[in-house]
């Protein structure tokens, strides 16, 4: 049972004697095995929320907890997939994926089993001994996802993981992630500024506004998805053609626009 709880979270920065409120009054519970996406304009604090769940940043008010334990620092139970991949350039694909498992004290045979499973799943077969710089962006992010999944974490945190990829690779990765998420359901907090991506991937969407960053509305996508049976369509473009999808996407856009998201695209 792994849930993420944001309770009255606030993040205030002090600069030159002035207080800048980055996040205010954030209350959210991500249920066990729920896929929650946070959408919002740049600078609304959505990445900060994820980083607080990861333990890379801390709230100045309120608390962030995973399974009722307050988050104090980073760890393999809250695996992160970074926008910039953050794979170790001096390690092979295999060694990168293995790194966290060694920290967890998993024995060699089990490590091999798990790594081979996710290498296969992420389509990395044959690339085990390659170095990150030899791989395309999409491949590198697959390695990063494998690296996170292989830890069997309580919670998966993804910070605009497809943001650095080209449009076509992005779509492929989204389809793969959906397949992966349905096959190995976990608690996921997914950050993105791309509305379509959020509607396609998430069970619920948290729409945030900026300055100060706060939650505008939380939308239930799963009920619509199951009702309209989007999963019957294997291809993303078929899902995105569904009237229910289009309607939902519009709704989210309108929310973002009315909250002054001038640079939303």
């Amino acid at each position, binding site marked *: 049972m792994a849930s993420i709880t944001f309770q009255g979270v606030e993040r205030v920065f002090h600069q030159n004697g002035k207080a800048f409120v980055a996040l205010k009054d954030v209350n959210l519970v991500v249920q066990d095995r729920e896929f929650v996406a946070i959408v919002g304009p740049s600078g609304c604090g959505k990445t900060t929320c994820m980083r607080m769940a990861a333990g*890379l940043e801390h709230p100045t008010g309120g608390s962030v907890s995973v399974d009722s334990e307050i988050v104090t620092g*980073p760890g393999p139970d809250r695996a*992160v997939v970074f926008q910039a991949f*953050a794979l*170790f350039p*001096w390690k092979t694909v295999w060694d990168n994926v293995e*790194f*966290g498992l060694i920290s967890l004290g998993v024995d060699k045979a089990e490590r091999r089993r798990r790594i081979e499973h996710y290498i296969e799943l992420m389509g990395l077969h044959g690339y085990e001994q390659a170095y990150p710089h030899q791989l395309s962006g999409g491949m590198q992010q697959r390695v990063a996802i494998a690296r996170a999944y292989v830890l069997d974490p309580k919670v998966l945190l993804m910070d605009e993981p497809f943001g650095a990829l080209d449009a076509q690779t992005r779509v492929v990765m989204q389809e793969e992630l959906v397949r992966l998420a349905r096959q190995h359901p976990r608690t996921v907090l997914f950050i993105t500024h791309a509305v379509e991506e959020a509607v396609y991937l998430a069970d619920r969407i948290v729409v945030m506004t900026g300055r100060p960053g706060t939650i505008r509305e939380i939308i239930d996508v799963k009920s619509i998805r199951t009702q309209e049976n989007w999963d019957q369509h294997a291809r993303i473009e078929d899902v995105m053609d569904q009237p229910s999808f289009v309607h939902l996407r519009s709704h989210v856009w309108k929310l973002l626009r009315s909250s002054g998201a001038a640079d939303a695209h």
Partner: protein
Amino acid sequence: MLQPRLPAARTAWLTLVGAGGFLLIWTLAALSGMTSRNFLPTPWDVVIRFAQLVVEPFAGFTLFQHLLSSFRRFATGFVLAVAVGIPLGLLMAWFVWVDRIVSPAFDAIRFVAPIAWVPFAALWFGTGIGGPVLIIFMGAFPPVLINTYRGAKNVDRKYIEAAQMLGASHFRAMTQVLLPAAVPSIVAGLRISAGLGWQSLVGAELIVASSGVGYLMVKGQAAVSTATVMSGMAAIGVVGVLIDIALRRLQQSIETRRGL
């Protein structure tokens, strides 16, 4: 205004003119008789003397034996500097409290020229190997420490965060993340370090040795044989260049492996 690069033929010609001119002036000055041939030998005299030293012992050993003696001291001091400098640099970069403790002491010492450690070395080690090794260490250590520290400190934050997220212990973070990331900086530091160490060596041997190239030069000076002294200088120069070339190769091979 920056001039465009000269064609290769022109460069070769100018180099020849420069070197040739230098040797010519030197030869003329030596032959002019203004001082004795012992005092100012011609370039050819030096070449002859160099060849002699290769086969005939002087001050106890042949040139290569002296060089080997010097190189042994250099290697010991250099390896010691690396063995202490790299781990300490990593520890200082990772643990702020280690930085706070070590920095003041380090800053106090680093500006003392290696040569200035000679009297201290003489008192403590006499003419044993310890003296020159200490001085070489004092020359080689600061660049290794500084470059390791800087390289580790400048590691992209995202790798540190990834390592922490992946549950790395302090030891694994330092050895598997900081160290590899800092390698380009460390290797650059090694080149500087080796150069300084080798240069300091001679100064050390002038005073606290009974073998080695520096010792050879001092004995040459005592015998008023400038040709001997210059042969020593040439040997030092050649070995210094070879050490640098070796390290430069190392640097290049590391850079290719990393895809830089």
